[in-house]
């Protein structure tokens, strides 16, 4: 007895959740593909983006504040990401599990830092009027914030795709991705490529933080609520592939939204996790597989 409009509405919600997952997971996937490390403080880059949006609104209020906030958040998160890469991640480059643990330490410190500065209760960002509308089509309401989020995700994906396919940095990234040793041997400064990609990835997370601030208050732990689904997206996507990440995000977004027709939020989380585990039973290498000839990988 499914209502068509309800279903359509949830599918739209699914895509909107998926776009958040993509924005939160893309940076993780990029650096995971390149350096085989997961940055557990990635969620705090979202949080930083959110607080930077809040600060931008204080300084330049007005309808276009959000458009100012986006570059600010991107640069701020990219800068913090750069510092993190140089001071912690680079030192642990050959030890992926230890990187995971050390960056979790960073995550704790950043969360507590935010708590000390902004307080444990969230700060609110009011969406500008032009985002506070929406329209109804065939009985389904489309809020403009959700459409805006979808648009941001699509733009980021297209821009990133072009960057990887067309620019010199993209070429270097592809080279290092293929064969790190060969790339280093042919004179590419692999570490600089790592750093650039890491900054790019955390910058995208900063953008995601701005987008999140439209949906709810920015709290010190706001990143935590999105980062674990983002981890699952990366695991399901397969070795840092952009296409794989996007497909995985859409699948999980839809699973999450559609299951909420029948069950509550916590059960839908259970179903999402089960979906990932089940998926890995059939495709352990993820959505997009890469062939490897190394003995240990």
């Amino acid at each position: 007895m499914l209502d068509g409009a309800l279903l359509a509405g949830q599918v739209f919600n699914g895509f909107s959740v998926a776009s958040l997952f993509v924005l939160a997971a893309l940076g993780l996937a990029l650096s995971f593909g390149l350096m085989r490390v997961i940055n557990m403080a990635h969620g705090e880059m979202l949080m930083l983006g959110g607080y930077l949006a809040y600060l931008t609104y204080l300084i330049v209020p007005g309808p276009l504040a959000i458009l100012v906030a986006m570059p600010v958040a991107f640069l701020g998160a990219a800068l913090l990401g750069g510092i993190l890469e140089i001071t912690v991640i680079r030192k642990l480059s050959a030890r992926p599990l230890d990187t995971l643990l050390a960056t979790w330490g960073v995550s704790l410190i950043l969360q507590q830092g935010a708590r000390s500065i902004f307080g444990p209760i969230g700060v609110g960002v009011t969406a500008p009027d032009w985002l506070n509308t929406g329209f109804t089509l065939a009985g389904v309401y489309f809020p403009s914030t959700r459409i805006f989020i979808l648009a941001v995700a699509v733009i980021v994906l297209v821009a990133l795709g072009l960057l990887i396919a067309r620019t010199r940095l993209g070429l270097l990234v592809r080279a290092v991705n293929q064969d790190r040793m060969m790339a280093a041997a042919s004179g590419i400064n692999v570490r600089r490529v790592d750093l650039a990609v890491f900054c790019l990835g955390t910058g995208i997370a900063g953008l995601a933080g701005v987008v999140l601030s439209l949906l709810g208050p920015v709290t010190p732990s706001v990143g935590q609520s999105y980062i674990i689904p983002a981890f699952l997206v990366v695991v399901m996507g397969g070795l840092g592939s952009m296409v794989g990440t996007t497909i995985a995000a859409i699948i999980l977004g839809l699973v999450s939204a559609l299951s909420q027709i029948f069950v509550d939020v916590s059960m839908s989380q259970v179903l999402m996790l089960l979906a990932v585990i089940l998926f890995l039973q059939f495709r352990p290498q993820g959505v997009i597989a890469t062939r490897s000839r190394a003995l240990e990988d």
Partner: protein
Amino acid sequence: MTKSSPFRHAWILVLIVAVLAPMLVSSYNLNLLGRFLSMAILAVGIVLIWGEAGILTLGQGVFFGLGGYSIAMYLKLSTLPEGSLPDFMEWSGVMALPWFWWPFKSGLLALLAIILVPAVFAGIFAWAMFRRRIAGVYFALITQAVALTFATLLTSQQSTTGGYNGLTGFTEAFGMPLGTDQANRTLYWITLAVLVAVFAGSKWLMATRYGTLLRATRDGENRVRFLGYNTTPYKVVAFMLAAVFASLGGALFTLHAGVVSPAFVGVVPSIEMIVWVAVGGRKSLWGAVAGALIVNFAKDIISSALPEAWLYVLGLIFILVVTYLPNGLAGLVEDLLAKSRRPAAPEGALVEEGK
């Protein structure tokens, strides 16, 4: 690898002090020590799965919780008058005892559940993961998602799990009134005995061929496969043992603390459990026990003096230990002992390893 240090028999002294602790420390500190020894039981399991097998799991809180909730459900039901429901259920308007509470009317079944439930759950989960060769970062992230999901589930099903507040208000266990000095001492000794058994069992296990194979798999899983081994069951068994140890620790902890709640099972507590072992030394049973005690006493002291500071300290410990002290305090002690034993060994010379 050799243990020919001057501290070879130090464990006897440590054990004597531990057994006599109820006569030596205040009842407040004895309670803390009891809780932390329960945590040390879990830490021993982490040495098996993380140190020996090289598999990082960020979901030990789940198993800690399974043990904790198993005993707590029994404690809740055992003191209820016939026909009534636990207080929080009545407040939420639950009319009948939910099916998953039924077995816990029996103390024996509750004790069995503490071992069997985590073993079965861990076994199925680990088998599904390891048979498809999901390892390393992937495995760690999935276990973390399991911890998050479990904690969310416990919190959201308020009417049947006690929700955010968990289960508390226990008055007696197996006919023994709780909270008395006598009860605290007994509980402490039981905890110590379980820890000693788990420790000795793990020590033995690491010396068996199974232990060698587990380390071999950590070093080079493909190499071991190409020697004709199916590595999956070896890893599954290690994961199951770690889960059962965590569950035992959780059950004992709940008895000491008098409460179990989602706050002990989620993402953050699960990673904190890894910190204990990282600080103590992931490849050393002694280190893990010491790490569990040191980190938790430090947490107790710091968070009561400067509540704000604990998370900064915890974060910093993580970064520093992982970066500069990958084998933890145990590794540091071992290095120092090795140096003091042969101070004149020239750099780069071929030294015969231990006699």
